[in-house]
């Protein structure tokens, strides 16, 4: 049994939509079987108006125990630090967030916006958006570097644009079943159980990556790293181990990984030439190389691979 309050700041509701696609458990099972008690949620909560503000006040005063405070979306601080660009129940949302985060046992940030600012924080950041405890790669964010919730943990970040429903539900289940001790977090506060391997782990094009064979839009087979900007080798996430919508993943449908579980997303701030294109030096050397490789060593190995005639037997995959 755990009381959960879920609020949205500068959000698109994408993480909520993703959450509603959950399968093991479904959202209904999460509530009925695992005793997750959703005090309120903007999409499915029944209360309106002052019913909601009373409920939040009860959480802050301790009248209602708040076990998990889930936040989706950026913390909007504009204009000029006032937070007036995002009013919620008569107050700037940021003021609610501050008080609720300090009242909760655990604070969970869901999606890139809540974790490190996401798309709204791309320059010029018109809404002065930031994440709960990070701003892009820099620790701090809205709650500050030293924040720990009553339960003794900093904000647990579940990034992704959106986060995969399993990443959300399994962490909620872990907290509600007393397994919070098993949730280890990395330098960006991501649960290691989901964010240690790379998107490339389990990608069906990994052989083409090894053999330096290019893929492209509308073609079957080939690796998307070299031409269309795939970030699978440097993005920590389990997209090819725990599939999306039980079916697939971006790279499985020839869609370059956008690196959305890393704090840089959207990478290079969407500048000219960075979207669906591999940024290169001298027109042929990839500027970013797989994590753990030095650039020179990687370029050398890739150059040998590209020029080596033998194993390069890519046939277009069969329809």
């Amino acid at each position, binding site marked *: 049994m755990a009381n959960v309050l879920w609020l949205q700041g500068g959000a698109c509701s994408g993480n909520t939509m993703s959450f509603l696609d959950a399968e093991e458990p479904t959202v209904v099972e999460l509530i009925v079987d695992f005793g997750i008690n959703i005090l309120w949620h903007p999409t499915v909560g029944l209360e309106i108006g002052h019913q909601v503000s009373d409920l939040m006040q009860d959480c802050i005063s301790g009248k209602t125990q708040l076990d998990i405070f889930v936040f989706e979306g950026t913390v909007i601080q504009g204009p000029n630090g006032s937070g007036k660009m995002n009013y919620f129940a008569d107050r700037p949302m940021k003021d609610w967030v501050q008080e609720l985060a300090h009242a909760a046992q655990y604070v969970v940030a869901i999606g890139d916006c809540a974790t490190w600012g996401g798309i709204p924080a791309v320059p010029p950041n018109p809404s002065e958006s930031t994440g709960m405890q990070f701003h892009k790669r820099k620790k701090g964010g809205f709650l500050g570097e030293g924040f720990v919730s009553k339960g003794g943990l900093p904000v647990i970040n579940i990034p992704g644009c959106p986060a995969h429903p399993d990443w959300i539900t399994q962490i909620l289940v872990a907290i509600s079943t007393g397994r919070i001790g098993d949730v280890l977090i990395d330098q960006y506060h991501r649960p290691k159980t989901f964010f240690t391997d790379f998107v490339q782990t389990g990608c069906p094009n990994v052989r083409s990556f090894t053999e330096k064979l290019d893929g492209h839009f*509308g073609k079957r087979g080939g690796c998307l790293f070299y031409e269309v900007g795939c970030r699978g080798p440097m993005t920590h996430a389990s997209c090819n181990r725990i599939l999306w919508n039980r079916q697939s993943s971006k790279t499985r449908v020839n869609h370059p990984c956008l690196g959305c579980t890393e704090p840089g997303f959207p990478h290079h701030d*969407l500048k000219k030439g960075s979207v669906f294109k591999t940024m290169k030096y001298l027109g042929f050397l990839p500027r970013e190389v797989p994590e753990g490789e030095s650039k020179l060593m990687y370029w050398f190995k890739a150059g040998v691979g590209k020029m080596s005639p033998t194993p390069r037997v890519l046939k277009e995959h069969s329809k």
Partner: protein
Amino acid sequence: MALKELNISPVGRVEGDLDVKVYMENGVVTRAHTQAAMFRGFEKILAGKDPQSGLIVTPRACGICGGSHLYCASFALDVAWKTTLPPNALLLRAIGQAAETTQSIPRWFYAIFATDMANKKFANKPLYQEVVKRFAAYVGTSFQRGVTASGRPVEVYALFGGQWPHSSYMVPGGVMCAPTLKDITRAHAILNQFRNDWLEPVWLGCSIDRYMQIQSWDDMMEWLEENESHRNSDLGLYLRAGLEFGLDKFGQGVGKYLAWGTYLHKDMYNNPTIESRNAATISPSGFFDGEKYYEADQKHVSEHVKHSWYTNQEDGLHPFEEPIPTAATDSRNLEQSDFGGKYSWAKAPRFMGHAAETGPLARVIMAANPANKEHQFRDPLFGDIMRKMGPSVFTRVLARMHEAPRLFLKLNEWLGQVRLDDEFYIKPTEQDGIGWGATEAARGALAHWIKVKNGVIENYQIIAPTTFNVGPNDKDNNPGPIESALEGTEIEDPHDPVEVGMVARSFDSCLVCTVHAHDNKTGKELTKFKL
């Protein structure tokens, strides 16, 4: 005479931050103001960025309609870059759009709308117990089945887009994917599961073929009484309880409707231009003023900002002429807003100068246009329902649900037309230019206007369906569709104004989309009270 003012913040279950202020006389709403309460400035973020940025950014304007934003963003670039689109690409884009909309039908009905029918307001009605048993949040028997089934259609989206929400698989020149046989066969199988788990046994209580025979309101009533299976289906219960609870008696709106239409035909839009688009839609576009149908020419769109929190714009500009909006710094909360001045982050879009409702009701009205072509939806039902019953919360919800069987059939038809040996993508030449892409998101007409100059985005303007529906007053202080639909609504218990929520939710307002735009003041101080 009891004159009261009711502030509702938040309204909730509308996707995003909607606040509503209503003025009541003897329990009846005489005037209403809607306030979009959150601003992110996506258009400002897009300016000066890579031209393809819209493909990544705009789906994330709205996680509910991300596929619809992608559909618009890709076609807007197709027009600007003068691309050629293979038939497969048009099919796979239409399949993605239709899958997202189909997902939204049960998810919206059970999770967002029908839980209000289980509100204590209706406790004295004979059908109340049955409604609670099925539609109550989380524990209702149909709530569980419907919400779970809503995940199926987007599994089809994931087969071609990799994931839902937030794929960017539609790109200028076509689509990224090159599906294989098993993707197509699986997609058919998943759709059949959706039909077998929910659409036929739970929602319709009959076959899709039987339902598709309904051409008029009399046919609908005849269908309802035909057998127990029809009467006891969720549609049967909705029809009976909806009328018993009086959902047909409130929430009329402005009586004018706009649809951009969608599902561009595989052989009719291979060289996308602004001018050739409307004729190529399968779900037809149009503007209906209550009497006549007009062409939905995007030239007739303008946006008003008198009541929107933006500082650098004139009233009545076309999106191509609008500057990137600069946010005002004096936004206020609902209670302190000045509704004679600026009061919302939404702009007020107008079509031919009129406030127009967009959404499923607008779409089914366009489908009843006798001038529709052979390749377009031709369905007289809602022409008849509008004549006999007119618009209301009841009609709007029925329109939404009416789309599910037809989209199921279309999805299967389009899957059958994909040619696995043919092209899915034709690499375009990047160039400067202007483009327009439009669609029907589940909740209504969505469009993007883009200008690319010197290889970067010079201007990007989005008008979301909720912007049309939830926008504030225009420069002449005419109300927006939801503001108008709230007028005349009886509020039984001001401590639980469920009626306001039902009107807003019947439009399936999606504020997360709207807040890209901007918008406050009242004249006399009226009596105030808190909920």
